[in-house]
């Protein structure tokens, strides 16, 4: 077991696959991001049968599969339900470590929205803290049209 590599000259073929994609955001997400970009408003989808508001929004209710959904605008304010502080840099991370990732339950919605916290020290973040969206100056219809969330004022 310990000597399995004895006498082995490992030959490695190095290669790289470049895989560009462009993902169509789809009908539901497009409606959300256009409203976010143009009006700086956050909206979710309401299932009347389940009486729940989902954010991210969806074309069908994830619980009962009903397609009878209705858009509702919510205030850009919510509560942190989970978070972590990432200390180690990964290439795919959107900014320099340390980064505070948080699940934010926007008031009135059923599910959490994943985003970044800023204008707060990592040590001061608490589950249950109230936060508000800081909208980006330049908006491109992506999730970063909300630049980050910060402690509610």
């Amino acid at each position: 077991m310990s000597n399995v590599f004895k006498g082995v000259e490992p030959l490695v073929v190095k290669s790289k696959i470049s895989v560009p994609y462009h993902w169509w955001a789809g009908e539901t997400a497009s409606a959300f991001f256009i409203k976010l970009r143009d009006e700086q408003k956050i909206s979710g989808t309401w299932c009347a049968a389940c009486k729940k508001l989902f954010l991210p929004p969806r074309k069908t209710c994830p619980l009962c599969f009903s397609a009878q959904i209705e858009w509702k605008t919510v205030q850009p304010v919510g509560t942190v339900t989970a978070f972590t502080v990432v200390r180690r840099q990964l290439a795919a991370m959107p900014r320099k470590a340390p980064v505070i990732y948080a699940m934010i339950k926007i008031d009135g919605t059923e599910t959490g929205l994943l985003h970044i916290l800023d204008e707060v020290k990592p040590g001061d973040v608490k589950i249950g803290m109230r936060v508000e969206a800081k909208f980006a100056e330049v908006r491109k219809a992506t999730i970063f049209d909300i630049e980050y969330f910060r402690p509610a004022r």
Partner: protein
Amino acid sequence: MAKRAAIVGTGQTFHKSHRPDVNGQELINEAVSRALLDANLTMKDIDAIIIGNMDHFEGINYVDCWSVDGSGGTMKPVMKITTGGTTGCTIAIGGYHLVASGMFDKVLIVGWEKNSESDTSGAITTAFDPIWDRLVFAGAISGLAAEAQAYIARYGATDRDGARVSVRDRKHALNNPHAQLRKEVSLEEVLASPMLADPIHLLDVCPRTDGACAVIMASEDSAEKITKTPDWIWGTGNRHPYAYLGDADYGRLTSMERTAKEIFKKAGIKEPRKEINVIELYQPYSFAGIIWIEDMGIVPPGKGAEYIWSGATDMGGELPINPSGGVISCNPIGATGLIRCAEAAMQVMGKAEGRQVPDVNHAVSTGFGGCWWTDMILHGKKKPNY
């Protein structure tokens, strides 16, 4: 035409951080040869093969075909199943479905991974939705850390509690010659290791591993002819929560709770803590060893840490968990869930050698996937009465 089904043989590689001496097919071949030897069968006896690994990890898409030199699948029915972290458990469930349906008598199940061949953090990030989650989020650890933070806030656990789980699994690994990491650590060493994502330290999480595992399942028509001690499958299940990272109830693994309830109800298990004798838990980081046994119904919510500290889940305790050393000691991802299944089967069959738990009647093995989904299998010594 439905049949009862059992595991009749298992095989694994000696897992390592990298295996520069073999390619993927050769790695698979090591596990398959050992499983055939264990069951005293030859490739001729195998009616179908299910194989699985992680999407993007080796950059090979037609693994079902590409792997036949290793798996022995030339001109046999071969199917590939891949479900992220749960892959190894899902292929076992898929194999069970094939045998239990009566369509195939003997099925070979193969899980494998050469984690060393690519940027696995990049590949894992493709598990997250590209529009909503992926721009914000990266890697596998951040989500687990958020779960631990939410659990800590709700139940008052500490990072010492998590570290105790890591100490247990790393100690158990000393008994398993197949495990990659076989070094005992102390609580203080876990807590002093670098913080990756609060509250998870380096020694709280699983490594990256090259390895393969193979399991042979047979129907009740042949299982007892192949081995005197088949490991009967009593139930399998899986559940997915909904689509986005923010949809989960952080601090609770709802998919585990639902899966466990379904399987235990079917098997007539009323007190899992007393009726299950060993668990091979797909536990990619230490805190899951506290949180998820609560969701499985072993102890009530908030009582996991106390149960771990009591020593009940150590070798020699009431309900040993991860005698193999678990995922923290060894994680060839596409094989990881199947290793849990094989280790549970070995416990039931009395073949677990230095890591054998005495008198195992029922064992549980599980699989976990990054956006909070769960696979689970209930194993048993007796043939199920349904």
